């Protein structure tokens, strides 16, 4: 059981970081990015190709992160332009549909051109004992990087003026504008950041299990579910929901079987939405 919980935490941290990017985009810009999973996969493939080309792993990872950020920027500059002209529910709906279209294009293309490509970063060395459970180094390194990133995010949002500025747009867009903060600029930044985060999750995931070109849709679906359960726009909620759902996923899969555990996860998410549409930590409107 402890092994399951630890594995669940490893998975959950990644769910959480994945959802954090998505939830930030929603909280800031009222936009739902269903191409999130594809950003992750494309970045992972970039790293894979770089490694194939002989680039040292660390640099290849850096390239992948850049790719993720670039993809996010591209979305902001192209597909999302018409979305910004709308407000409220129309905006969410259009962003959902257009990013869905993008995800089809990317998914279809990747699967057509590079159907067998996978990314698998192998962290060598024996297993390390945590609480009596032998954990693979890959999982530990992945979790450490994820935790470091999460800490970095907190420091950024709490203590830097840019981070505060971004939070202010989430809190009250008009208020932010009145003190000279440009919400569109902040959103662009968040899209780049979320792209980088998606890339990071893909890279760290590849240290635990291979990431291939088919993963895109399931990554997006998991990110969406965790985001909604945690509360749209709430980063802490996303992290919390991620960890909880990660643990539920692993424990249930072990005890009951992977299909039923998936259904359990989905139903748990649905129930949360129905009981508290605002999410675990969402603010009731």
């Amino acid at each position, binding site marked *: 059981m402890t092994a399951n919980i630890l594995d669940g935490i490893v998975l959950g941290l990644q769910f959480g970081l994945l959802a954090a990017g998505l939830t930030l985009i929603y909280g800031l810009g009222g936009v*739902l990015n269903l191409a999130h999973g594809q950003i992750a996969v494309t970045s992972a493939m970039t790293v894979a190709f770089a490694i194939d080309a002989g680039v040292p792993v660390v640099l290849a990872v850096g390239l992948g992160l850049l790719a993720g950020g670039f993809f996010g920027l591209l979305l902001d500059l192209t*597909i999302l332009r*018409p979305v910004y*002209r*709308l*407000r*409220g*529910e*129309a*905006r*969410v*709906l*259009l962003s*959902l*549909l*257009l990013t*869905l*279209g*993008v*995800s*089809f*294009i*990317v*998914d*279809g*293309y990747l*699967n*057509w051109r590079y*159907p067998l490509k996978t990314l698998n970063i192998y962290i060598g060395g024996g297993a390390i004992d945590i609480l009596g459970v032998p954990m693979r180094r890959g999982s530990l390194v992945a979790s450490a990087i994820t935790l470091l990133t999460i800490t970095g995010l907190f420091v950024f949002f709490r203590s830097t003026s840019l981070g505060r500025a971004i939070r202010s747009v989430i809190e009250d867009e008009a208020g932010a504008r009145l003190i000279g903060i440009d919400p569109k600029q902040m959103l662009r930044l968040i899209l780049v950041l979320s792209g980088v985060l998606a890339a990071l999750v893909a890279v760290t995931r590849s240290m635990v299990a291979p990431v291939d070109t088919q993963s895109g*849709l399931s990554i997006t*679906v998991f990110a*969406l*579910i965790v985001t*909604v359960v945690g509360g749209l726009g709430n980063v802490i909620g996303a992290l919390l929901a991620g960890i909880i759902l990660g643990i539920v996923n692993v424990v249930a899969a072990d005890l009951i*079987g992977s*299909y*039923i555990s*998936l*259904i359990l996860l*989905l*139903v748990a*998410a*649905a129930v949360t*939405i*129905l009981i508290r*549409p605002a999410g675990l930590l969402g603010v009731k409107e």
Partner: protein
Amino acid sequence: MSSRFTGSTGTSLIGGTETRTTRSIPALLIPIILVGAALALVPLWLGDSRVLMGVAVLGLAFFCYVIGFNVIFGSTGQLFLCVGALAGVGGFGATILADNAGWPILLSIIAATLAATLIGGLLSYVAVIRSLGVIFTGIVTLIFSLSFDALLLGLSHLTGGDTGRLIKSGSDTFLRERLPPYYLMLGLALVFLLIHGLLRRSHIGWAFRALRDDEIAAELAGVDVARYRVYGALIGAAMLGLAGSTYALTEGRISPTTFGFGHVDVVVMVMLAFGGIGTLFGPIVGAITFTIVDEILIDFGQLRQVAYGILVIILFLWMPRGVIPSAASLWRRISRQVKA
């Protein structure tokens, strides 16, 4: 409701504000009969090829799905991302009842359709009492879709898991011949069109339009938004279940992909968006166009998905009201310029 879908520029994402709904029944029947007659002639031309007839039957199945989705989304504005799943409840339900439980085919179809209807109604009811907006309704129905998919894979002894299963029931009946399934599905489709058309002309249809255009005003005018939303979902889900179960029994084999999200929902949405969300005959245009397009693209493998992605973007960016309304307004603009 269109106020919710109207951007700051006033463009609405959902069209179909057809105020020219005449009350006369002939005005409804004649186009339907014409469409029916035209489609009835298709086998004359494709009838020799079993493969092409199969494609035609599938096309008609999609036609039915699109009408069902049109009733749920186009008429009452509920974003049900579980079209395939509801049809699958019909398809797999009828299959299991007929093959495994030994029920008579007709009864199996009826029971499976009923199940789909109830699930659709339940989803709508839940969305309504929890006041879920479009997005959350979409997410909850998507969760149902994904769960159903996982269930199909998990209960592999009943459903055949990944590979699907054959359906023995009906294999010695007219259901498996070359032409009857076509006319059976065509009949269903025409009946669905008729139902949708009659609905639009009835007080229910008036309520649908009212709640879609301005929910708050509709409430004030005494329209029980909750009740009509559930009605819409029940009717639409019934159509989906019936179409799904009938199709399954004529096909003889089903698998999770037959009713999967990527295979059904996405295509149905593109078909409806293309034809015109909320319009009566939009589904025809969409279904015919994309059955043909899909056949053409089938050789391209994964690139097909790329094509659909591009289509979704183009459709929702430039023609959110569907090709027919957009083409119509473009035509009007051109003819006005020519006259001037």
